[in-house]
C-alpha cells in the first residue's frame, strides 16, 4: 500500500509521531493502532478525520477491515468496557469481534453497543481511500465501481494507479472503464491531434462523464466567451454531443414510459379492490382507502414481529393483509352493508362513517404518527441499465406484483365456483337466487375478496409512501376515477384505465409540472365521460341500465 504519498497524510502522521514520542511509551506493534482507534472513539468529527488518515498511514492489515466496518456502520463501542468491536446484527443481539485482534467475543445486546457515527465528509473520505484500495480487489464489480468513482475528481496520482492497473487488468469491462477514464484525460492534453482522436473515440460511448466532458467543451463562461478556445475542437464536441443526444432521447422516453407504468400500477392496485366492491357489487365504498391502510399497517406489525427479516416479513404481509383486510371487509358487509342493498347511495354514507371510524381506531392504536416500514434490500436501489437509464427496483416489483394480482383475480372470477357465483349475482341477483346460489354468502365473500385485495394493495403502498392514518384518504379519489374511467364492473377496464392515466400523467408532467398535469388528466376524464358516458369498456346488456 505504497500509494499514500507522504505529502497527503504527512502532517497527520508527523503529529502522531510527536505525540507518541512525547509519551515515551514502549512501542509495541499495536500502540499506534490503539492511538488511532482511541481517536476514532472520540466524539469530535475532526479528530475522527485525522484518526482515519493515520489508520491509513499505519499500513496495518487491520486498517482496511476497520475502515470498511466504519463505512458500513458496523463499528461499535461496547458501552461497558469501552472496547472497539465490529458487529453484525443478529436478531436482538450483535455478533461481535474485537476490532484489533479479530477475536470473537460473546454476543451482546443491541442496547449495550453504540455505533460510531459518520458525516458525509468522513464518508466520502473513507470511500475514496477504500476505493483506491479496492482498485485491486478480487471481484471485478468492485473494481469497476472503484474506477467509476475515481472519475469524479481524478488527479495525477490516480492516473498513474489506473495505468498500472490497466496493464494487469483481466476483466474486459473494467479495462474499458479504465481506458475511458484515460481517454477523458486525453481530451485535455496539449496535443491537438491527440485531443481530436480522443473525442472521436469517446463519441461512441454514451456515458455520463463523456457527456459532461463534451458539454464543458462547448460551454460559455460568464463573459460570453467560450471556455474552449479552439473552434475545431468545439465543433467536434458539438457533433459528438448531438449524436449522443439522440440516444439519450430514446432513453428518456423509455424512462417516462416506465414511470408512467409504475404510477399506473399503483393506481391499478389501489383501484382493483374497488372495482370489485364498487364495480361488481355497486357499493360506493368510501372505506376502501382505509382497507388499504389496514394492509399497510399489517406490514408494519409483521415487521415489528420479525425485525431482522425484512424480505420475509414483506412477503408474509401479503397473505396476512389479504386475510385481515378481507375479514374486516366481511365484518363490514355482514354488520352494515347487507342492510343497505338496493340503496347504493346510502352505502356511501355508511362506509364514510366506517372510514372515519377506522381512521380514528388506527390513531388510537398506533398513534397519529406515521409508522416506519422498512424496505427489504432486494427492493431498494435500482437496476442500472446504463448511465442514463435505470429502473428502480421497488417500482419494478410493484409493477410485476400488480400484474400478478390482476391475473390471479381474473382467474378467480373466471375459473372458480366463487367467481362464477359472484358474476351471476352481479348480473342478475334474483335469477341467481332462484338458481340456488346463496346470495348473502356470495355478497359477503365478494366484499371480502375486494377488501382483501385492497389490503394487498396496502402492502405495496407501504413500500413507497407513508404508513399513517391518512394513507387511505390520499388514494380514494384517484381510485374512484380509475374505476369509473375504465367502466364500472369491468376489471380489464380498470387495468387499462390505470395504466393509461399513469402514462398520460407522466408524459404531461415535464411540460406542465406535477400539479397542472394532474388537473389536465382530471379534465380529460370529465370530457371523456361526456363522450363515453359509461367509461372505456361499458357493460353491455341488461345490467348496464340498472
Amino acid at each position: 500500500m505504497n500509494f499514500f504519498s507522504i505529502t497527503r497524510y504527512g502532517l497527520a502522521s508527523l503529529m502522531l509521531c510527536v505525540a507518541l514520542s512525547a509519551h515515551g511509551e514502549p512501542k509495541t506493534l499495536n500502540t499506534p493502532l490503539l492511538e488511532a482507534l482511541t481517536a476514532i472513539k472520540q466524539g469530535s468529527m475532526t479528530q475522527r478525520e485525522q484518526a482515519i488518515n493515520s489508520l491509513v498511514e499505519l499500513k496495518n492489515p487491520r486498517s482496511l477491515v476497520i475502515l470498511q466496518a466504519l463505512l458500513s456502520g458496523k463499528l461499535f463501542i461496547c458501552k461497558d468496557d469501552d472496547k472497539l468491536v465490529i458487529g453484525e446484527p443478529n436478531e436482538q443481539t450483535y455478533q461481535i469481534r474485537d476490532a484489533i485482534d479479530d477475536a470473537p467475543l460473546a454476543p451482546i445486546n443491541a442496547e449495550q453497543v453504540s455505533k460510531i457515527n459518520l458525516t458525509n465528509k468522513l464518508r466520502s473520505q473513507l470511500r475514496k481511500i477504500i476505493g483506491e484500495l479496492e482498485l485491486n480487489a478480487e471481484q471485478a464489480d468492485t473494481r469497476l465501481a472503484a474506477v467509476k468513482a475515481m472519475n469524479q475528481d481524478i488527479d495525477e496520482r490516480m492516473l498513474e494507479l489506473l495505468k498500472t492497473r490497466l496493464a494487469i487488468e483481466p476483466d474486459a469491462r473494467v479495462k474499458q472503464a479504465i481506458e475511458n477514464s484515460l481517454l477523458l484525460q486525453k481530451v485535455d492534453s496539449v496535443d491537438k491531434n491527440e485531443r481530436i482522436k480522443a473525442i472521436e473515440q469517446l463519441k461512441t460511448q454514451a456515458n455520463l462523464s463523456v457527456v459532461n466532458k463534451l458539454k464543458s467543451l462547448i460551454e460559455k463562461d460568464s463573459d460570453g466567451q467560450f471556455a474552449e478556445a479552439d473552434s475545431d475542437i468545439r465543433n467536434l464536441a458539438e457533433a459528438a454531443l448531438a449524436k449522443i443526444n439522440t440516444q439519450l432521447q430514446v432513453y428518456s422516453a423509455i424512462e417516462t414510459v416506465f414511470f408512467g407504468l409504475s404510477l399506473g400500477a399503483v393506481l391499478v392496485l389501489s383501484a382493483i379492490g374497488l372495482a370489485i366492491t364498487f364495480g361488481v357489487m355497486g357499493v360506493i365504498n368510501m372505506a376502501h382507502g382505509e382497507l388499504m391502510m389496514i394492509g399497510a399497517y399489517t406490514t408494519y406489525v409483521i415487521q415489528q414481529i420479525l425485525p431482522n427479516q425484512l424480505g420475509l416479513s414483506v412477503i408474509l404481509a401479503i397473505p396476512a393483509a389479504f386475510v385481515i383486510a378481507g375479514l374486516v371487509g366481511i365484518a363490514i358487509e355482514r354488520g352494515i352493508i347487507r342492510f343497505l342493498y338496493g340503496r347504493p347511495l346510502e352505502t356511501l354514507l355508511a362506509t364514510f362513517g366506517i372510514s372515519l371510524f377506522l381512521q380514528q381506531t388506527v390513531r388510537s392504536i398506533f398513534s397519529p404518527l406515521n409508522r416506519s416500514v422498512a424496505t427489504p434490500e432486494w427492493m431498494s436501489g435500482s437496476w442500472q441499465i446504463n448511465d442514463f437509464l435505470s429502473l428502480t427496483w421497488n417500482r419494478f416489483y410493484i409493477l410485476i406484483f400488480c400484474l400478478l394480482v390482476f391475473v390471479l383475480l381474473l382467474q378467480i372470477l373466471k375459473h372458480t365456483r366463487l367467481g362464477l357465483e359472484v358474476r351471476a349475482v352481479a348480473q342478475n341477483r334474483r335469477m341467481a337466487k332462484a338458481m340456488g346460489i346463496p346470495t348473502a354468502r356470495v355478497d359477503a365473500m365478494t366484499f371480502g375478496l375486494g377488501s382483501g385485495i385492497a389490503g394487498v394493495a396496502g402492502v405495496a403502498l407501504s413500500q413507497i409512501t407513508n404508513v399513517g392514518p391518512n394513507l387511505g384518504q390520499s388514494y380514494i379519489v384517484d381510485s374512484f376515477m380509475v374505476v369509473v374511467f375504465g367502466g364500472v364492473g369491468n376489471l380489464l377496464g380498470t387495468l387499462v384505465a390505470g395504466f393509461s392515466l399513469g402514462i398520460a400523467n407522466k408524459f404531461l408532467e415535464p411540460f406542465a409540472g406535477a400539479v397542472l398535469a394532474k388537473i389536465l388528466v382530471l379534465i380529460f376524464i370529465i370530457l371523456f365521460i361526456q363522450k363515453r358516458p359509461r367509461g372505456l369498456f361499458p357493460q353491455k346488456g341488461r345490467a348496464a341500465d340498472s
Partner: protein
Amino acid sequence: MKNYLQTGKKLLGVLAISAALFGTAQAEDTIKVGVLHSLSGTMAISETTLKDTMLMLIDEQNKKGGLLGKKLEPVVVDPASNWPLFAEKARELLTKDKVSAIFGCWTSVSRKSVLPVIEELNGILFYPVQYEGEESSKNVFYTGAAPNQQAIPAVDYLMNDLKVKRWVLAGTDYVYPRTTNKILEAYLKAKGVAKKDIMINYTPFGHSDWQSIVADIKKFGSAGKKTAVVSTINGDANVPFYKELGNQGVSAENIPVVAFSVGEEELSGIDTKPLVGHLAAWNYFMSIDTTKNAEFIKQWKDYIKNPKRVTNDPMEAHYIGFNMWVKAVEKAGTTDPDAVQKAMIGIEYPNLTGGVSKMLPNHHITKPVLIGEIQDDGQFVTVWQTNKLVDGDAWSDFLPESKPIIADWTAPINCGNFNTKTKKCSGQNY
C-alpha cells in the same frame, strides 16, 4: 296551527338551550391555557405531539405550585386540520373559556386564519413552528424560526463547507416554501450563483409520485458541479421523496438534501436507510448533549410513557414559549393580555441547547442555528452551528418589498409593520 306552534316552540327551546351552552362562562379559580392543535385530519401527525407537550408543561408547572397561586388548567380543542375551524375554535377559547393564552397552530394558513380573531379579542398566541416571516402581530409570539434562523445559515454551510455550486430549491406549493425559496434565490444570486444553476420546483401537498422530479434532480446534479437540494417539502410528501432519492441512487454524498421540515418526529416514521447523511437545519436537536435537554427528554418519555418517543424542534419552541409566558405573567403579576404582552419583551429563558433565548421587541426570539446530518437511528449529528444565538428577523432583508419594514412592539414605534422609509405603520387592525 296550534300543532305547528308547539313543534316550533320545542325546536326553539332546543336552540335556546344550545345557545346557553355556547355562552356560558364559569368563573373558577384557575388560569386557563388554550391548546389549539389539530388532533384529527392531515395535520394530526405533527400537531398531536405538541398538544401532549403542552399538557406535560402545564402539569409540570402545576407540580411547582401553579402560577400566581392558582392552578393552570389546559383547555384542549380539536380544530381538525380545518382552517376556518381554527378561527372558530380560537374564538371559542377566548370568549367561552376565557383562556389567558393560546398555544397552537402549525401551518401558516391556520395562523393566518386565527390572526384576525386573536387581534380582535386581544388574546395571546404562541406559535411554535418555523415559518416564512413577513408578519409580526401584537398578539402573537413567534417561538419558531424565522427564515434567517434556518434557511440562510443552512445555505451558507452548503456553500462554504460543502462547496455546493448548483442548487435545487424544491418545495411544497404554499407560502412558507415560496417565501423561503424567494429569499434564498435572492441570496444565492447576491452570492454570484447564475440563474441556470438554480432549479426551482413546486409540488402539491402530499405529493407521492416523485419519479420524474427525482430523475430531473439527478440530471441537474450530474452536470459535474457539486449540487445540493434545499427542501421545503412538507410533511407527508417527504417519505416518498427520500425513498425515491435512495432508490434512484442519489446519495447524500453526491447530492445532499437539506430539509427544513424534517425532524426527529418525522424520522421516527420513516425507514431511515435512504436518508442517512442528508441534512436538516433546526434550532434544536434531540441529540444535543446538555443537562437541560437530558432532563427534558426524560420528562417527556416519562410523561408519554413510551421510552421510544422523540423530542423535536417545535416541542422545544413550546417549552421556551410556555416558560417565557410563565415568567412574563409572574413579572406582570396578572394574566391581563396587555400587561403580559408588555412584560414578554425582554424575557429571557434558557433553551435546551445551552444558550439563553430572549424575546425580542419584534415578538420573535433568539435561537442558535444547528445543521445536522441524519443518522440511521433517526437522530442528528450536529455538523455545524452558529457560534452565538441569532435574532429572529420578522421582515426579510433579502426581499425588496420588506427590506424597509421593521417590527418593534416597544414605544415609540409600537408597530409590527413599520416602514422605516415612509415612517408609517401599515397593515394593522387596530
